[in-house]
Structure formats: C-alpha cells, structure tokens
C-alpha cells in the first residue's frame, strides 16, 4: 500500500511539474506582438538581421514542440539559456540571487509555524467570550495587514528609535553572520506575520476539535496532567491539518518574499524577476518563475508524504 501511494503521488508530481513547465514555456510565446522586437525594445540599431539573429538564438524559428523539447532538455541539465542583456547564463544569475530568498523564506516559515503552535494552544485553552472575539479580530487583522506596509512602518520606526542601525540590504551569512541575522529580523517579522495569524487560528480550531474527543476524556480520567493532555494527546492529532497548511502557506511566503525583498532592498529572486520584467528579459523571467514554482510544488509533495507518515490512514486510502 505504501509504495502504491508513493508512486501515485510521484505520478501527480511529474504531471504537475510537466504542466507548470508547459505554461512557463508558453509565456514568452503569448507576448502580444513580436516578443523579439519588444525585447530589443528601445535599442536604436534594430536591424532585421539582429532580430533574426536573436530569434535564432532563442530558437523561436523552430516548430513549437521542438522548441519545448530543446528548452526543457536544457532546463533538466541546469541550462536555462543566457540572459539577453548580460549574456551570462541564466542559471548563474539565479544562483547568485537564490540564497537571500531561501534564507528569508525558511526563517519566516520557521518563525510563523513555530510560534503558531504555542499561541494556538494558548488560544484554545483560554477560550472565553471576550477574549475569543478579540483574538479573532486580531487574527483577521494579522491576515489582512499588508506585509510590505508592515515592513515600511517598521523601517520608519527603527530609523526613528535607533538611528544608527541599518535595516536595509543583505550581507551573506558566511561573511558576517551577526549582520546577516540582524538585517533579517524585520523582513522575517513582516513576512511571517500573516502566516502566524493564519496558522494560530488553525491550530486553535484543530485543538478545540481534538480536545473534545473521547481519548482526551480517557486521558483525563486516568489522571494525566493538563500539560500532557494538551501537548501530547491533542496536539499530535491537531498537527495533521496544520502540516498541510504549512505547505500551502509556503507558496504565499514565496510570493510575499518578492514584495518584502523589494521593501528591504534584499537582492533575492524577487528583485531578479522584477528587474527582468522591467527590461523584458523573458528567459530570465521564465527561469525564475519555473524555479520558484517547482520549489513550491516539491515542498507540497514532501508535505503530502509527511502527512502519510503522521497519519498512516492517508496512505491506506
């Protein structure tokens, strides 16, 4: 049963990745008008020869399916083509920008998911009429505060309160670990807050659900402590919907990271893709979207597998 589940999930994964690659591939072909002329854009010395040359270099003069297989074949070997303007390999550009985004996203997932468990448990236990409404409103506020606004306000406050501290930019962890983490604090807060609000609400309702089950009554009857009941019996069962949500929220964070990077001047994938759009560097846009989406798809695939480990009933269906 286990292997069959694994294979069916792998088949789904392959299909979704294939579909994603088709859509990303079609992007450049769907640009209204002549993509190549638009890419050359403001360049004054556009000659028919140059257009034809670029078209040949991008392989746009070949039949569609040949273009796709050439492109995906390259991608699978780590060759995303060359950046139109700099002439550098796209893979190299992505490699230079991927770490800040990765660090920002992972730290935010860790903070958002990590804090939501104690907060959600607390909310479930401290369920009272007044508090319940306040917490509910607070959580919706957390969900609807634009993370980029939170970032801007926090930069402003920091500059007013601690004028000497720089919150902007990025230093690689390997160069200056302390400076790196210091600059990550505000972006991580801004990025993880919506996730924290969302997951706390989820943990709260899952815990309330779990706490009303029969096995909790049994545990109470045999004299287990409140702490043991909450954290061992109820939490384990409440974690199942939680883990699925963490996977889904990672996608929101990847999107949110693009905006937060822009606010805090972090040179990550978000800045890369925005710059690429501005200069109509389509191969770079395609590659960045493909890499980020594939990462998201694979995270969700792993979450699915984890789900089956935690709850063996899933794999049996």
């Amino acid at each position, binding site marked *: 049963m286990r292997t069959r589940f694994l294979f069916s999930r792998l088949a789904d994964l392959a299909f979704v990745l294939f*579909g994603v690659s088709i*859509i990303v591939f079609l*992007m450049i072909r769907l640009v*209204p008008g002549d993509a190549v002329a638009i890419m050359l854009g403001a360049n004054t010395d556009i000659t028919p020869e140059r257009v034809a040359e670029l078209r040949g270099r991008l392989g746009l003069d070949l039949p569609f399916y040949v273009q796709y297989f050439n492109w995906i074949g390259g991608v699978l070997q780590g060759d995303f083509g060359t950046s139109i303007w700099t002439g550098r390999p796209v893979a190299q550009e992505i490699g230079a920008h991927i770490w800040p985004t990765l660090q920002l996203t992972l730290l935010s997932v860790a903070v958002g998911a990590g804090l939501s468990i104690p907060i959600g448990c607390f909310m479930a236990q401290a369920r009272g009429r007044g508090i319940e409404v306040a917490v509910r409103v607070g959580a919706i506020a957390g969900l609807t505060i634009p993370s*980029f*606004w939170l970032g801007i*306000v926090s930069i*402003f406050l920091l500059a007013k309160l601690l004028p000497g501290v720089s919150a902007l930019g990025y230093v690689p962890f390997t160069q200056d670990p302390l400076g790196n983490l210091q600059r990550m604090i505000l972006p991580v807060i801004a990025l993880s807050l919506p996730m924290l609000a969302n997951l706390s609400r989820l943990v709260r309702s899952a815990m309330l659900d779990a706490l009303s089950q029969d096995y909790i009554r049994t545990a109470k009857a045999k004299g287990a402590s409140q702490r043991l009941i909450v954290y061992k019996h109820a939490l384990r069962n409440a974690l199942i919907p939680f883990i699925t949500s963490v996977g889904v929220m990672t996608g929101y964070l990847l999107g949110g990271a*693009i905006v937060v990077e822009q606010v805090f001047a972090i040179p990550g994938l978000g800045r890369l893709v925005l710059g690429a759009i501005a200069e109509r560097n389509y191969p770079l846009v395609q590659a960045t*979207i493909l890499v980020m989406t594939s990462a998201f798809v694979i995270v969700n695939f792993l979450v699915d597998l984890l789900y089956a480990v935690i709850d063996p009933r899933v794999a049996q269906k």
Partner: protein
Amino acid sequence: MRRFVAKNRLLSFALGFVALQVLLAVAAPLVSPHSPFAQVMAQRMQGPNLLNWLGTDQLGRDVFARILYGYRTSLLTCVTAVGLALVVGGTLGMLAAYYRGWFDRILMRFMDVLFAFPILLLAIGVIAVLGPNMWSAAIAIAIVYTPIFARLLRGPALVICESEYVMGAKAIGASDARIIFAHLLPNLASVVLVQTSLLLSAAILVEASLSFLGLGAQPPVPSLGLMLSEGRNFLMLSPWPAIFAGFAILFLSFGFNLLGDALRDTLDPRLRGQDQ
C-alpha cells in the same frame, strides 16, 4: 431583514464597514474637496491639517483625495477580477461536478497545474506577458483565482448533484440547464457569497502588492499600492502618505474578510468556530 441584521451584530458591523468604504469610493468627487491630481507645490509633504485632512504627498497632492480614488482603482480592479474568476471558474467547477467523467478529470487536472503556482508569482508571470497596467493586474488576478473558484464550487456542487432532489428532477426529465440553474445554482449561493467576500479581501492585498511592485496601475492613476511605494521614498521627510495608504489597504481588506467570516457564521451555523 432589519431584525436579521440586528440579530447579527458582527455581520451588520462588517456590512456597514464595507458599505462605508465602497460609498466613499463611489462618491469620491462629492466627498473630497480636492482633485487627486492637482499639484500644489507650495504645500508639499504636509502633515494632516484642516485644509488637507490627511496631508499632502511629495507633489503636493491631497492624500485624502488620492486614497478615495485609490479605493476606486482597487475596488474596480478586484471586483472585475474576482467577478471574472467567479463566472469562469465557478461555471467550470459546477459543470465538472455535474457532468463528471473525462471533462471533470481533464479540467481539474488543468486547474491543479494553475494551482501549483504561488499566487503572486503567477500574477507576475501574467503581467510579464501582458505588460504592466491596471487591466493586466485585473486579468492576472482573475487567472489566479479561476482555479480557486472552480475547486471551491466543485466540492459542494458534487454533494448537491448526489442529493435526492436533483435525482428527482432528473427522474421527471428536467433538462441539464434547468437542473443547473434552478437547483444547483441557488443552493450554491451561500458558498459563493462567503467565498467571494473572503477572496475579495485577499485580492485587495494582491492588487496592492502588484501596484506596489509597479506592476499594476501606473502613475498618475491614484492607487493605494503605488502610494505606498512612492511614499516609501519620502518616508523620513513625510511618512503620512505611506501610513494612510497602508491603513486604507488594511481597512478595505479587513472589511471584506470580516464580512466573509460573518456571512459564513450567519448562513451556515454548522461552520461556526471553524476557520477553514
């Protein structure tokens, strides 16, 4: 109706809060004494005062007026986008549930693929193709939300299609169109209402993010996201435009989220206390 609203204090508050903002947007020229475009260079970057209630921006334009017209841009973009997604996605989801079989399988597979993209990233991809402006943003949000509506409506529609009254309607020979319009659609109304409100709340944030990134409405169109990104550059000189624009986005999104939540409680008491 009046008794109904009085009984649901959260719902009436949410309704009032959203209605107030929509009204302010619609009646913007009547409410604001200033034009959102008029630049008064002598009064640049003022804080809130009697003449300019929420101050002025870096070009001496009235922040209050720009926020009201920004509401217009935001609501116009998001209502268009969510409306389109609801019609296209909702119809597809409903048809998939009704006809099942290969149509359902192929369609939902395609939706799975669209669903695999992080929301903002797919929107950015669409805008990269269409070129950055307000209507591209609307189309991008519509494309992102289509699979969400398809999935959201397919589930409940499947349940309704299995119900006895639909079986009964089929047995007495009702046409497909009659079953879909007379039985399926009315019974999905509450799901549609709740989800549209919740998704509008999220769409407002997506629209604000896109225009903040320079991928939505272009200057000089008044837009809340754009106000934030412009205000950011003058933050230390005058934080007011950025702060008020942020609150405007927050209130608009918050209002629709609260409305969706309250509607869910009112329309389906079974779901009370659940978050998903």
